[in-house]
């Protein structure tokens, strides 16, 4: 009886997801981003590509780390020669850095704006454009209404949207598929060599629609995300 119930509930859950627009994954789509166990947090265990993700960053360091994670995800999304639009403030992002994450910087169109009002307008227009693969946007504040508009735009055009949000104060709720937070973690030594190891982040999913939250540690190793389990923070390390 209990088994039958569980099966029934699973089936119902799957139906609900399907009604909400989450297609069951076809073979070969699972785990394409290489985010490892993190992807299991999303509905059906697949990173929702055609939706808007929000990354909260409270400092320049976190913004850089979030940018790194987004670029890592973009490298997979842009593999088939797609184009990404990166909307931000004047000349914050340094284009050559994208090359290290496997994204050709000339495949990215930068739009530098000063006013949040313009940024929101451009972001919405960009999300409506089906000729794009992904849109990244740096915003100071976004309210629920705006995020709902983004989500609706994305559902038609099947673009992936990322919003890098400055979160100084209380976070208002949004209609985004997931809320991420990325923090840099100390890298580990490679084979006892001095210097920096692979880039390592602590990736937190603070909110996932129809999924579950969690915290993971990821490393960027030569073009791939590699999930790592142990977190070692040692204060007594010496330089060089």
């Amino acid at each position: 009886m209990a088994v039958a119930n569980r099966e029934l509930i699973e089936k119902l859950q799957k139906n609900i997801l399907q009604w909400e627009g989450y297609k069951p994954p076809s073979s070969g789509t699972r785990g394409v981003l290489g985010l490892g166990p993190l992807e299991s947090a999303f509905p059906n265990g697949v990173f929702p590509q055609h939706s808007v993700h929000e990354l909260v960053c409270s400092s320049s360091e976190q913004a850089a780390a979030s940018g790194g994670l987004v670029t890592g995800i973009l490298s997979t999304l842009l593999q088939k020669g797609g184009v990404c639009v990166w909307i931000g403030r004047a000349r914050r992002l340094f284009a050559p850095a994208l090359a290290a994450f496997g994204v050709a910087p000339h495949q990215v169109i930068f739009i530098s704006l000063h006013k949040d009002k313009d940024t929101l307008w451009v972001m919405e227009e960009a999300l409506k454009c089906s000729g794009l693969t992904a849109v990244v946007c740096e915003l100071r504040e976004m309210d629920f209404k705006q995020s709902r508009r983004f989500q609706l735009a994305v559902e038609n055009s099947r673009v992936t949207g990322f919003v890098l949000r400055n979160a100084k104060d209380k976070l208002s709720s949004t209609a985004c598929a997931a809320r991420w937070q990325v923090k840099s973690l100390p890298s580990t030594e490679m084979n006892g060599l001095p210097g920096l190891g692979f880039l390592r982040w602590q990736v937190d999913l603070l909110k996932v629609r129809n999924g579950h939250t969690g915290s993971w540690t990821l490393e960027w190793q030569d073009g791939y995300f590699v999930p790592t389990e142990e977190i070692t923070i040692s204060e007594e390390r010496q330089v060089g």
Partner: protein
Amino acid sequence: MQKRFMAIWFRHLLTDGLARRRPELKDLPFVLAAPVKNRIVITAASAAAEREGAFVNMAVADARAAVPELLAIDDVPGQAAKLLRLIGLGCIRYTPIVALNLPDGLMLDISGCTHLWGGEREYLKEIVLKLRAAGFDARAAIADTPGTAWAVARFAQKRPIIASGAQAIAIAGLPPAALRLEPDILDKLQKLGFRNIGPLLDIAPQSLRRRFGTGLLLRIDQALGRVEEYLEALVPLVPYTERLPSLEPIRTVPGIEIAIEKLLEMLCLRLQADGLGVRKAVLKCHRIDGRKVQVGITTTKGSHSVSHLLRLFKLQIDKIEPALGIELFVMEASRTEEMDVVQEQLWAESKGLGDTSLAELLDRIAGKVGAAAIQRFLPAEHHWPERSIKLAGSLTEQPQTAWPELPRPMRLLNEPESIEVMALVPDHPPKLFVHKGKRHTIAKADGPERIGREWWQDSGQHRDYYVVEDSEGCRYWVFRSGHYDGGDAQWYLHGYFA
């Protein structure tokens, strides 16, 4: 289609123009005068002066004898052409082809234009009344040929509209001067007793040629329409132009939108047939107060999609100031580009820099926030970080060199920010640094990567860059400007790594 021409004659062009600028001269007898062979000779006389007996080509001194209060103003050469040009530009709302007819007239090619004003009579009345209201004593005539229109405007007493094909009857009763002839031919005709053109038309052309040369024959043929006469348009015609006159002046945004849509539909249909796309289009709105406002759009890729171009123009509508109303819309595709029409559908699925919807998106963004906000970077052959990228000239320009493989920060500060550091050993990465009052203890560091100044561009210290990671795991790009023992070594924070 039978061509129709309209000649406008300004009887007192220069004096009317001056009186318009200086209203106190209105109704005063005044003349424009210029020195000719040590005499001051009248070059133009106002209507009041002519009534009192001061005529063109009289010496001013003689005229003063007849009209003591005569005012003589220095004539500025070239004024007539300037005035006619201005009036001609104002007439473009009536027809796209307006030609100057120096020294005192305009010639309009009005073929296919008059029905918009309800017929030739109303068209002529509208123009003449408008010119008279502006203070110009204008007379106009409409005929099949410029020659006949010219003659009738200047010499006929009534019936300014000559029916199609009736040129011979219309000019038969006019004096030979109506044929635009040289003075010596006119003298000869005068001596021979030709008071009217009529008898000339009955004489065999061979005899006329023997006595008067080919000039007279040409003028007769031009007037009768046997020889075509070409007009040199004041404003060169843009090949892809559409005009939309409105029945009533338009002042509202929806009205302007409808006008733009109609124009674009007409324009895009023509462009599509020729396989062209708009790169640059201008909308000119002629207002009823005689002024013209215009807005323009540019596209990154040729386009003949009505919906896309309409959306671009919609972003510009608030820049149009309709004032009392707009009576004519003109849409010009001032730059066009050949398009690959056939391939469009086939490649619609491919996402890439060549994608049409991407080009359309960028056009909209450029229209809203300005084209300068959109940037695409290519690697430049410089190691100096600030110069290592350059802006791409076009959307499809590909990099000539590879992107740098050395670690570069995700975020680069526009200006390196000064930091205080503590290093254990000279030429080693710092042990800790203080940025904006916050202490960062450095756990790991890579470097240095020395980047020298480009001496042919600027002078100064080289930079030794270190990638450092603090105890919290945040990674920074810091550099020391100059050698450690130089005494003026200074540390800076230049970027944040992911």
